[in-house]
């Protein structure tokens, strides 16, 4: 049951990551590209990490619990740093005077 849950989580996460990569390649300009790069990657890595954390904790003992907490901490730190980085890059682009894409 839990095994099914973590496979679903990991697969879902990969779907998000795939969407992120497609978005970076396909979207028309810098700002729109930052959108999938920031959001979908964070979501995808959260789901994947969650899945891995549950998978590790399936065989329950102290060492595995610690490992899964470490994995969750990775997700927390990605959530802190990835949006900040995206924000800073976009901020720098606006300050440098890059015009957003207006066609279409």
């Amino acid at each position: 049951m839990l095994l099914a849950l973590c496979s679903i989580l990991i697969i879902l996460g990969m779907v998000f990551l795939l969407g992120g990569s497609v978005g970076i390649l396909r979207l028309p300009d810098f700002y729109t590209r930052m959108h999938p790069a920031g959001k979908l990657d964070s979501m995808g890595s959260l789901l994947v990490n969650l899945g891995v954390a549950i998978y590790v904790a399936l065989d329950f003992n102290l060492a595995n619990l610690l490992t899964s907490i470490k994995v969750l901490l990775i997700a927390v730190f990605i959530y802190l740093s990835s949006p900040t980085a995206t924000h800073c890059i976009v901020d720098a682009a606006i300050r440098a005077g890059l015009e957003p894409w207006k066609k279409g």
Partner: protein
Amino acid sequence: MRYLYLLLVVLSASVLFYATLDFPQWGDPNSPASLHVSPVYLQRSLEDTSVPNVVTSVLADYRGYDTMFETTVIFTAGLACFVLLRVFAPKMKDTYYRHIQSGVVLHIKGQTTLLDGSRDFERIDSRWVPADIILKTISRFLIPFIQLFALYVVAHGHHSPGGGFQGGVILGASIILLSISFDLRTGLEKIHERGLGLFSATGVFIYTGIGALCLILGKEFLNYGVLSKILPVDPVMARSLGIFGVEVGVAITVMAVMVSIYNYVSSEGRLDEGL
């Protein structure tokens, strides 16, 4: 000319390719490389040095002499950046001060240190932009964690992947993050150039000094076992402690050199107006 380059590349590729025909299968546990010397390290690491991480024990003990020079290479890179880029007498440049409360910027022609100690004014760069509040808050939150993690990596190199180089780089990265998210001046306030220079020399000095201590105590250079004469432990444990000592030295040097390379390169050696 382009075809000549291509020819050269193809030529060296074909020599390399020719040699692979003779290689053992990839991942073959019975290849000569895995049979001659490396089993000795794996079998003897625990009884010789009591370090479970064989990479660490080979790195800092069996081939510790290489690692000493490796640390020296890092030190040399920092030194080279210092010698090549550092400009001690900056050109007469304008100075900018910003009144913190009102945000008024004073533009003073020429070099001055007039308001440097003042509480109401801060020195700013000519290309100054107000520091981003999100970035500032997040990096202020993250830097302690990064530094704690770095110390963990240094200290835990005996039992898990890690050691002086990795820990030192992470420690350096935390300070570089500070310099990036605020500005170079803030980074330099925390750890200034003189400190970095002294640290980078101290780290390698610790490494070589531990080696020389073994020499003074009457055994070969870097033969940590002899440290048991001055430490209250047996020779095997002394080796383990010696490895830890040199790892700390490595970490100090790597941290200082990484930060100082960043400082010199990002500000073109003026250590003023960095990135």
